[in-house]
Every structure is written in C-alpha cells, then in structure tokens.
C-alpha cells in the first residue's frame, strides 16, 4: 500500500472534561496522538481514567472539549466525522443481536450497505474466524469466545480502515482470550486495518505495536517503551 493511501487519525492538543454534580471533572488534557492505519494500539489504565472517552474521540463519535481532531486520507485532511464509514467496533459484551443467527449478525453491516453478496461474504468471514459450523446458531447457543469471534467477523466484514475494540477479551477465560487476541490481530493485519483497543489485560496490550497507558491519576497518557507522550 503506498504511504499516501494509508489513513491516519490525528488528535492535537485535545482535552476532555465533563460536569458531574456541578463539578468539572477533567479526564485528560492537551493530548497529542496519531493513529495510523495498519498499526495496532492498546490503551490501558485504571477504571474511570478516560480510556473509553479517548476511544470515542478517536472514532469521531464524540467531540473533544478542546483541541483539534482530524482524519488524513489519500493525502487530504478531513474532519474526523469522515471516518464514520471506515470504522468497526468490537465490544466487551459482544452485542450480537439475540434474535439473529451468527450468519445474519455478520451479514448485518453488509446488508445495510446494500451489498448483494452479503450472506456469502458473511459465511466466508465466519469460516475464517472458525465458526463455519455455527452459521445458523443464535448468540445464546454460542459460547462467549464464539460470540466474540462472530463480533470480530461482523466488525471486519465490511473491511473498515480502523477497528476500535473495547475490552475485547474482558469477558473471556484465558484460553479463549488468547485465541481471540490472535484472531483479532491477524485479521486486522491481514486486512490492513488499524486496531485500537482499550484493555486491562497486560498480555493483550503487550501484543500491540503501541501501548498508551493512563498514569499519574487521570491526567496523563504514556506510550510505553517510549518517552512520555504527553504530560500535564
């Protein structure tokens, strides 16, 4: 892939805060980050430190209190909301629709995009994640690990440029967590998608190319193995 075709998410001097019981709570401030398509990122830190908020900002679903966010695509700088059609999400609770089979859950984003071969593509993806034999099972008939495989297939089936995952292995046992992590990384790598994960798992975070860790209370973000990226 030529370097100019690689998409990038830029956060410049971004701050996020909210008001609770008439008191201003600062999550983070003056943050500078760059997320590149094809790379993997892990965000770690204690609960309530602002990991999920950062994920929402990166995906363009929320606006920062201060600072600029942008999306670079094909050499052009675009507002971050242009990223919307290029992202997929994976959740800790899987969030498969309970009344749909695994196949129909995975076919959902393709159907919504009006793709005619939705079910064939969904089948191929389910086979890729090892659920070829569970196509017509409903979520309740699948184990936690299987549900997350289906969720990964659903997030990647429409080939987004970025995958945002919120605690993707948080609900799984060690064995399943390792398998899911393997699958997630390999699939993203194979499709050239950027992967941004929020996780408490050190093992999972260790597999990412970049690890951002909230430390010093809730105010700072550190890229591990590198000098501190930003500090208030």
């Amino acid at each position: 892939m030529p370097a100019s075709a690689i998409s990038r998410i830029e956060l410049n001097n971004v701050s996020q805060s909210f008001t609770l019981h008439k008191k201003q709570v600062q999550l983070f401030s003056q943050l500078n980050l760059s997320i590149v398509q094809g790379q993997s990122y892990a965000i770690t830190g204690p609960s309530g430190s602002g990991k999920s908020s950062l994920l929402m900002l990166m995906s363009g679903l929320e606006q920062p209190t201060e600072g600029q966010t942008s999306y670079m695509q094909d050499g052009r700088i675009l507002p971050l909301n242009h990223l919307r059609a290029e992202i997929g999400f994976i959740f800790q609770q899987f969030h498969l629709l309970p009344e749909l089979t695994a196949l129909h859950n995975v076919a959902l984003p393709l159907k919504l995009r009006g793709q005619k071969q939705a079910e064939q593509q969904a089948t191929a993806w389910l086979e890729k994640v090892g659920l070829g034999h569970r196509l017509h099972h409903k979520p309740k008939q699948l184990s936690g690990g299987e549900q997350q495989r289906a969720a990964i297939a659903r997030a990647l089936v429409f080939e987004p440029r970025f995958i945002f995952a919120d605690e993707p292995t948080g609900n799984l046992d060690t064995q399943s967590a390792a398998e899911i992590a393997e699958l997630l990384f390999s699939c993203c790598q194979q499709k050239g998608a950027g992967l941004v994960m929020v996780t408490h798992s050190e093992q999972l975070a260790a597999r990412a190319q970049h690890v951002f860790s909230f430390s010093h209370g809730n105010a700072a973000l550190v890229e591990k193995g590198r000098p501190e990226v930003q500090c208030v």
Partner: protein
Amino acid sequence: MFSQNLTLAWHFYRQQRQHRHQHLLRWVQTILMVFIVALSQTSAGIQAYLSQNLNNLLGADLVLSQLQALTESQHTELAAMSQQIVLTRSLTTTLTHNGTWQQATLKAVAADYPLHGELRSSTSLTGSETLSSAGPAAGEIWLDSRLLTSLSLRIGDPLAIANQKLTVTRVLQHEPDRLMEGHNVNMRALMHSLDFERFNFAADSVQHRYLIAANQAQIKQIIAWQQAHLPAAQLQHKQGAHPLALFWQRTENFIGLASVILFFMAAIAIQQLTQLQMRKEQFFSAVCLSLGTSKSTTVQVSVIKWLLGLLFLLPAVLLISALCHWALIQWLTPTFAGLSWQWNFRLAAQTVLATAAMFCVFQLSVWAGLYRASVAQLIHNTQRKLSHGLSLACAVLVLLAVAVAYSDNGLLTAMLLTAMAITIVFMLASSWLLLSIGEKLTSNISGLLPFALYMMRQRLLSKTTQILGIGLSAFLLLFSLMLLKDLGGSMQAYQRQHDGNLLVSQASSAQMADIASWATQHNVAIRQHKPFIYAKLTRVNGRHLADFSQKPSDSLATFNQPVRLHWNDDVPDNNRIIAGQWWQHGDSNWQQVAVEQEVMTDLGLKLGDRLSLFIAGHSIDLVIVASHAYKPGAGSITFWLQMPATALKHIAAPHYAMASLELANAQFALLGELWQVHPSLRMVSLQEMTQRFDTTLAMVTQVISGFSALIIMLAAIVIVSSVHAQEAREKQKNSIILSFGFSRATCLKLTAIEWLATAAIAATGAIMGTWLAGLLIYQSQFSLPYHPDFIWLLTTLAIILLLVTALGVVAAKHSLAGSVRQLMAE
C-alpha cells in the same frame, strides 16, 4: 416481617411510579375502571328506573289497546275475566290557538280514571303538584306544561278544538299509564270522555285503551282470550316485556360490545406492558435473591407493590367515575324522564373488585415468573419464555372471563371473537408471507427498504407481536368507528330527501278532499298523493309474529302496531325490485304482497312466506312475491307492504292517503284552518321532523365522540406500549448500526420504514377484520344492512398508516437515542 416487606414494597413502588411503563399502565387501568364503574352505575340506575316504572307507574295490571272499541260482547267477556276495566281513548291531533299550532296527543278519560297509580296536576306552571282522584270534568281540559307554553295559553283560557271550546283548568303533570306508550315524548292533553265524543272523530282513528285490574290467573286467561279473539290488539302486562325493552336491548347490545372491545384493547396494552414489567421485576428480584432474600418475600413485595398501585389509583377512578355517571344521567334524562343520579356503593365495590381481579390475573404471570425462577435464571433471563407464554394464557383467560361474564349477548361476543381470531390468523400469515416475500424480492436491491424488511423478517416473532397488538387495536377502533358511523348514517337515511316541506302522514278521503281544495285555494302544490289502508301483521306462515321473529329490530317493533298497506299495479317510480317478481296489471291472483328488503331481513322473511294481516276486523292472507327497496329521486313516500290494486275488491277497509305539499313559509300559519276542521289530520312539517331528527342525531354523535375518544386513547397507549416493550432491543439495534459507521438519520429512516411496514400489515389485517366483523355482526345484531364503503375503508387505511408510523417514530425517540458509548458501558 410483613412491615419490612411493606416498607420495601412502598419504596419500590415510589421508585417505579415515575417510570414510563407505569404511567402507561395507570392510564390503561384508569380508563378501563372508569368506563366500567360509570357504565355499571348508569346501567343499574336505568334498570332500577325501568323496574320501578313498571311496578309503580303501569297504571293497570294489564292494558289492551286497539284502534276500534270493543264490541259489547267482547267487553262483557273481558269484564267477566277481570276485576275492573277503565277505558281511555286517545288520538294524535294538532291544537291551534291564536295562530300558533302544536301537535299533541288528546286523551279522554271518565270519572273512573285512573285505575291504579297517581294522577298529578297543578294549578300553574310553577305550582306544586297535587294528587287528583279523577281527570278533568266535562268542559275542562288539562294540558301538559310544554303544550301550555307552546300554545301561549294560561290557566282559565279557552281552547277551541273542532270549533268547540274547552277551558284550560289545570297543568297536567303525570298520568300513571304513560309508560305503556313507550318512550314517546308527544305533548299531552287530558279531557273528559263526554267532550271527546262530541268531536265525532272517526272511530278507526282513535286508539282505545282498556286499563284492566286483574290477578295473575286472570292475566293468563285474558292473554289467551286476546290471542284467540283479538289477535290484532296490543296487550301489555306487568309480567310481559317492558315497552322500552327493545330500545334498551339494542342499546345494551351496543354497550356490551363496546365494553368487550375496550377490554380487549386494554388487554392488548396490558399484555405488552407486562413483558416489560416482567423484566424489571425479575431484575429487582435477582438483586433481592442474591442478597439472601427468600423467593416468597420477593413475590410478597411484588404483590404489595401492585396492591399499592391499585389503591392509589382508586380515589381518582371513583371521582372521575362519579362525574361521568352524573354526566351520563344528565344526558339520558330526556329519554328516561325522572332518572336521577344515585351512587350504588355496593355495586361500585363489586365492580372495582372484579376489575382488580382481572388485573390480578394479568399480573399472575409476573409473580409466577418470579416464584419459579432461580437467581441464575433471573440473571440470564432464561425464564422469560415460560412467563411470556403464561402471560399470554392469562390474557386469554381474562378475555374469556370478560366475554362470558360481561356480555349478555353470547352470539355477539362469539361473532366478535371469531372475527378477532380470523384477523389474528390473517395477520400472522400476512406478516410471515409479506416479510418473507418482501425480503426475497428485495434481496438483490440495495438500500434501506430491503434492509428493513430483512431485519423485520429476522425478528419475525417480536415484530409479529407488535403487528398483532397494533392490528387488533386498529381493527377494534375501525370497527367501532364504522359501526357508530353507520348507526348515525342509518338514522340520517330516515331523513330522506323530501319533495315537499309538509308531509301528510294520514288523511281520510274527506280530509284529503279538503286538503286538495285548501291547496288550490292557497296555490299550494301537492307533490305526492298515495293511498293506503291499515293492516296489522299477526302471523307469518300460520305462526304468531312474536314466535316467528324473536330478534329485536325496528321492523318488529313497528309491526306491533298496524302498518300502512299500499296498493298499485306497477312498481312505484321510487322503488326497485330486489327479488321476486311484481304482479301483472289486473292479475286475478290478488293475494300477493311485496315487502321492503330491510323488513324481509329484519324479520327473516323469504319469498313465498304467507303473511296473515288483520285488516278492519278480518284476517287476510297474502303471499310474498317480491321484495323492494327505496330508490331516491322520485318522491319520498314509500311503503313497507304493497299489494295488487285488484285486492281492494276483496278488502273492505277505510282508505287513507299520504301526501306531500310544498308550502311557502308564510303559508304554514294557514294550516290552522285545516286543523280546526280536521283535528285528527296528521301533518308534520319538515322543520318539525328535522328538529326531532337533530335531537336524536345529537345523541348518537355524542356517543360516537365519547366512545371514539376512549378507543383512540387506548389505541395510542397500545402503540406506545408496544414501542416501549421493544425499546431496549431497538436501542441496542440502533447503537449497533451506529457502530457500523452509520448516522442517526439512517436509524430514523430505518425506524420509519419499519413502522410503515408494520402499520401496512396491521392496517390490512384491521380492514380485513373490520369487513369480516361487519359481515357477521351488522345484520344479525344491529339490523343494519352491511354495505362496506371501500373508499372510506381505504381512506382510513391511509390515515392509520400515517398515524401509526408517526406515532411509532415519535414514540421510538428513546430508542433512537442509543449510542456506541452505551454499548461500551453495558
């Protein structure tokens, strides 16, 4: 322990009070309870009124009435079977005074009147009533207050009738035998028999009523005697049907149906809300159980909480019910004169308890669900299917209980249930077919519509529940509106277009001749003129009319009186033949009759049936050879029964005529001349008819408006409840769609498409159900011909589509507020 549970339940109740599903539930419960309590109070009041009227105001143990006087031998036979006989004679006439005129019923009594009960009168309009032991003396006349006012008369004024002067001496307040004349509101005048005889009214225009005092054995004897010797006479007695029974039975049929419909709609709404409530209660119980509480305690808390909810609802329910009951009584007073507001505490308690018991059955599924579940099951929500099935079973149980206990017309309820069952099957089948075919056909097309159909097809079960709820309430709403509209419409049809503004409903040959000369003199056009004789239908195919047709209808009620029999050689211009063949000109077979189509249907007559008609003291048999219907555009005077002109050679009876005239406004004042000469001449002006009609139509319109408002309110609650029941799932779906990179506008469009599809299937089912219910119920229960107006139905379809979609989208605003962050937070 109990006080702890009570405290917990109170706490839980207060917490949940502001939840939306609790608001909706309270609305449904309040509407239903107010409706039932107010209705039962009013109904009980009317029943008590009717029964009291019957016992105290009958004026006799038995009343025999007919146009002719009894012959001497008949009178002797009757006297031998009874304790006392009192004769009253009456005639409807028009009284005039100083240029004003008013139609009224003149009643003549002798010194032996009243037989039973109280005759009350007063010396001025506002004066207090006093009991009179006898009616007016010779030369006096008593007028009721409305007639007195209408003719601008005062006590002491002379009143000329047929050029004879009587003095108005008292205001007539109450005659004890009025009830026997049904719910007629004619103005009244009471005079002495001697004066009445001086007028020399034609004997056959005077109604002779014999008030008879008799014991039970004598009553039976007299009934048998009347059937054998005076089959055309009317007989009413204390043990017999009430004169208002037919009217009230029809009203009760309607109210019964309305109640069942309201119950069904409330059941649908409660059933939808129960699903949601079950989830919330299960969650609460899971928390309690995980903290070491026993199952029985959680159920107890839930029961107490439910009771608290009901208890706090009661003050408002009773207050609103009392107000509604008062308003209903005010509204019904013109029909049931003297009906007063009375609150029956025992009945109110019974009604509230019965309704609470039904609500309790709905709630059973929730409690059963809580009791049978374990902590693990509750947390994983795996018990829902069982409880869901149970809640459906409870709903069906309540509906059956209501259908059996509340509706006193089993056939009507069975018909409605059949129509509902077929509608349900139709909606299930059409949901499956349309969504499956729709999904297949659009699978190769891109866009939101195929996706919406695909999603609906995948969520067929939950969607079908929603479609059924909305479809059934739309069906019930549509059917009620259609029935009310057609009831109103059928009344409007009575007001046919007149080609004349004065209708002569009965004129003897001499009267008609005078009318003709009067018309020529004043340059008034006679638009129509049709002759008839009076005939009383006594038997059909040899069976007594009462045995032949027991179904209440307007036709049957009218046939209790003599009806007009017209003759002709050709089909009248304003009639068309529906079935059979009209007789030929000069046909030698004179024993033929054509019967109006609605009458045929009402009485269950068919071609070839033999009608025995009592005409001028003789029984004559005519065979039905044709049925006809009114055809507008060629005059308004039409007859139910018509026979060949050749029949006249074989029937000796006084001839009368109906006619219509066109008068200029100023010429109405000249009618006094005719009435002075012919007080028994029956003429009615269009203004007067319109006024009577308007009063009745206003009553029907009020029923329509009130009932529609209730139904619409419940239908809206059903829609909001069904949205609310699915809200969590919809929210999740929308959040997931957002996580695929789509905008909220996409979710909104998808919601609108889904609601449009839901509304389309539900509305089609509703229209099908309405058509079916109309087919089953109209003729059988309301004696209305069923001619579905498809333009009206299609317009309604469009309105339902629009409203349901709009309401669905508006109600779904909470589910559209989902976000990816919420998915992360779960």
